[in-house]
């Protein structure tokens, strides 16, 4: 078997080891690669800047724990900006693990900024039904959530009493690994005009780009890169910036093996034509 044939039939594990080691490198030795800020991120930050103290926003945690490695930096950055501006937060989720993500990443920033539970922020947790649920809470929040995530009755949460339907919310921010952005665009923005901001995983950025272009989505961040730019815009580089360098290494490995795959393929075809 010629060298090229062996290259073409390379064992998968060689690629997987190369991927893991090169991605781990920036975490061991910080690379600090430079980055240009895109207009999407600047527009996202200025939209949040416009919020006044006392305004209420709906934060929809529609990502599982698996997506935190991508959007964790963005979650923490949004919590920092909202708490710095005294904006009140009501959190919901269309994903079973979403309420855990809120508790582990969003809540600590709020509590360290002195936010009181039930008055300044509420975590209502997960409710099944996807688009059904999102359509229902716009009309009547307490019909779907008679209790919050921790089991406290709705009556004991003053913030939930005040913010019972769409009219109480200045805007919606969804951290989205699925189609929640589409649900909110249809059931909140199209129906009631409430601006929808989306922080999709990079996967979903192109998926929702037509909605952003058509005006159904107000502002959008481009996955982990958008979160890293947003971190720099609010002057708090953290989880996302560290992840971006590791991400660059990962994508370089993919491109390298695509090139290798083609070298093997083209080389083999030339060799066979010569025989």
């Amino acid at each position, binding site marked *: 078997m010629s060298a090229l044939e062996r290259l073409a039939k390379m064992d998968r594990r060689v690629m997987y080891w190369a991927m893991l080691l090169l991605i781990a490198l920036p975490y061991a030795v910080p690379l600090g690669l430079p980055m240009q800020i895109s207009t999407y991120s600047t527009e996202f930050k200025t939209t949040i800047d416009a919020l006044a103290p006392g305004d209420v926003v709906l934060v929809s945690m529609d990502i599982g724990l698996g997506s935190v490695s991508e959007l964790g930096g963005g979650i923490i950055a949004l919590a920092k900006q909202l708490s710095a501006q005294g904006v009140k937060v009501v959190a919901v989720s269309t994903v079973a693990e979403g309420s*855990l993500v809120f508790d582990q990443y969003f809540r600590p920033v709020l509590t360290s900024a002195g936010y009181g539970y039930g008055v300044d922020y509420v975590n209502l947790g997960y409710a099944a*039904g996807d688009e059904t649920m999102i359509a229902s809470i716009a009309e009547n929040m307490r019909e779907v959530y008679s209790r919050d995530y921790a089991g406290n009755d709705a009556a004991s949460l003053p913030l939930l009493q005040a913010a019972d339907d769409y009219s109480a919310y200045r805007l919606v921010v969804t951290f989205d690994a699925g189609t929640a952005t589409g649900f909110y665009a249809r059931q909140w923005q199209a129906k009631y005009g409430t601006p929808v901001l989306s922080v999709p995983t990079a996967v979903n950025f192109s998926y929702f*780009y037509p909605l952003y272009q058509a005006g159904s989505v107000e502002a959008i961040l481009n996955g982990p890169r958008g979160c890293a730019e947003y971190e720099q815009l609010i002057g708090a580089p953290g989880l996302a910036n560290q992840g971006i360098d590791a991400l660059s290494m990962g994508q370089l490995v*993919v*491109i390298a093996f695509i090139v290798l795959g083609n070298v093997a393929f083209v080389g083999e075809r030339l060799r066979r034509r010569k025989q």
Partner: protein
Amino acid sequence: MSLINRREIPIAIGVAACTLVIASYFTDNASLASASGSLQLWGIIIAGFATLLGLFSYVAYNGRQIVKKRSVYSGVAVASALGTIAIGLALSPSSSQYSWLTSNILTPLSMSVGSFIGFFIVSAAFRTFRARSLEAGIVLAAAAMIMLKNMPVGEYLLPGVLPLGNWLNDIVSLGGNRGFTIAFAVGAIIAGVRQILGFERGRVAK
């Protein structure tokens, strides 16, 4: 044929529910909106019961594996499911025990299985992205271009890749995106009508 087995009844239920949900979207009539809202709420409630049905089937299947094949893994699969349910319902999901379970066992497992997807991208791309035809070449070139665009270091490897990549992503692929989206949406609506009217399922098996 007794009332129970008549196919027309589930079809009638489906048509009624579907028509009501659609109609409420096109009128601002309050009673229609609340009827559609409560119908969607019914969907949530039935989904809850369906999950219990799914749990029985899961326990039954794994139970058979334990008996027939002495499978330790099926034992762990059943025990961990029932254990999670016991803690989650008896102590509520926000209890410290449940959040310890989810953040220290479920999260690492979930993220590690998720990382397979990143690894599998390399082996799939290596095997398939070979310039064997113009079409395969287009997919390969577009993928590589966008990956370079999304990397801060990409701008230094290939100057101008950011504007070019944004142009490819926002303009050139927009036409294909829209055409594909419109086509599948048309297909989904018509297939939805066939499915609700009961035209589809029984026929293909003949």
